[in-house]
């Protein structure tokens, strides 16, 4: 009896669109909420290290004297902690996942402008 019911479902499926997608030929769709990867608007960042201290997987390193902010995208667990903690709101969670790679590398961002220059500009 049960087989006939499932047979009907299966037969119906023959005329429906497949439940799966032909990735990567068909691009995946993300929702507005999807947690993909973290990006930092480095020019807005004050290099305060709060994100690095709060990150549960220690994926972020901040070097204030060297003016760099770096993240290991493969160590990041997309937990949102840094985005919530950042006082400057410069971190964003993109829906796009980190692209596959053959090496695990830090993504380093260097801050070019900065407080010093602003200070100089203010002095002038």
């Amino acid at each position, binding site marked *: 009896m*049960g087989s006939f019911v*499932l047979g*009907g479902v299966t037969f119906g499926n023959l005329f429906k669109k497949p*439940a799966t997608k032909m990735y990567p030929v068909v691009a995946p769709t993300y929702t507005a909420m*999807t947690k993909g990867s973290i990006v930092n608007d480095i020019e807005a960042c004050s290099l305060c290290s709060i994100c690095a201290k709060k990150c549960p997987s220690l994926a972020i390193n901040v070097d204030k004297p060297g003016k760099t902010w770096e993240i290991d995208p493969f160590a990041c*667990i*997309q937990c*949102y902690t840094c985005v919530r903690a950042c006082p400057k709101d410069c971190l964003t969670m993109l829906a796009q996942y980190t692209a596959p790679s053959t090496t695990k590398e830090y993504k380093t961002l260097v801050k070019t402008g900065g407080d010093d220059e602003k200070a100089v500009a203010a002095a002038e």
Partner: protein
Amino acid sequence: MAERTVIPFGPQHPVLPEPIHFDLVVEDETVVEAIPQIGFVHRGLEQLVKKKDYSTFVSVTERICGICSFGHSLGYSQTIEILMGIEVPQRAEYLRVILHELSRVHSHLLWMGLAADAFGFENLFMQCWRIRERILDIFEATTGGRVILSACNVGGVYHDITNEELKGIVDVLKGMGNEYSKLTKTFLNDGSVKSRLIGVGYLSKQDAIDNCVVGPFARASNVAEDIRCYGFGGYGYLSAFEPIVCEDGDGYGRAKVRALEVLQSIDIIVELVSKIPDGEVMVKVKGSPEDGSVSASRLEQPRGECFYYAKGNGSKFLERFRIRTPTAQNIGGMTKILQGCDIADVPLNILTIDPCISCTER
């Protein structure tokens, strides 16, 4: 009398999805004793709790299990809230239960698929998983994650699910109903499923009580034990709750209990969505647990009762944290049902209790 032989089974075995080892003492084709051994993927959570502060540690508890991930973050948060005396906003309690029940639906659908796969019913397996995918889509749209939700922490839930979204969830679940009823019809009436499950792995009510088994495993042996009855957290807002029990005690009974629990979870979600109050979903948590404070809480996970214990020491780091997962509790019953079964039924018997050995190894 036939000669006794010991057959090692697992932790890596083609038919065994989980890292558990059994020494099966067999006489001819019959297992007379099964000696379990765990500890292959131990993760040292009790040490880790000293290195991550209590609000960060929720990321670790979520990763105890990939299926009841939300449940563990909920159980942990609940325990710390009791420890620190935090009152959670009502809306957050509702949302927690809704997300937790969605996890139960997807966990049971996953199990039904795996069970179908185990007895070679590939078509049924794919249909179960296709339906399950919709729950994962709901998770992705409302919390951002498909498996690890990172939605819950001490003090509430991070992201509010709007009332429209909740209505959308109810619509999806109701739309699923028709397809799901066809699936259960197959699962519970099909001859091949019945021939594989009826009478397999029988556990009597007395044995279930003696071995302290929990969850659907116990309820299938007519032990009406469900933590949701006690109304912890958001479950207190339900108008009525009756655990689903079955007298069969065999693999078929366990399948039946799980199949019906999916419908029960859907009813719970529908009821809570109709009653959910507006308001905040997260309170700000300040301070740390007091020195010497202890708390414990219980939660009904898809696999059964899960117990949490926490002890504070005045700092942001917990002194001690312990979880007893449902599978840890069910291993006793599992060895019991293996006694006297056919060697060919061993993998299926293990599967019918829906084991999650990796969660057992905290």
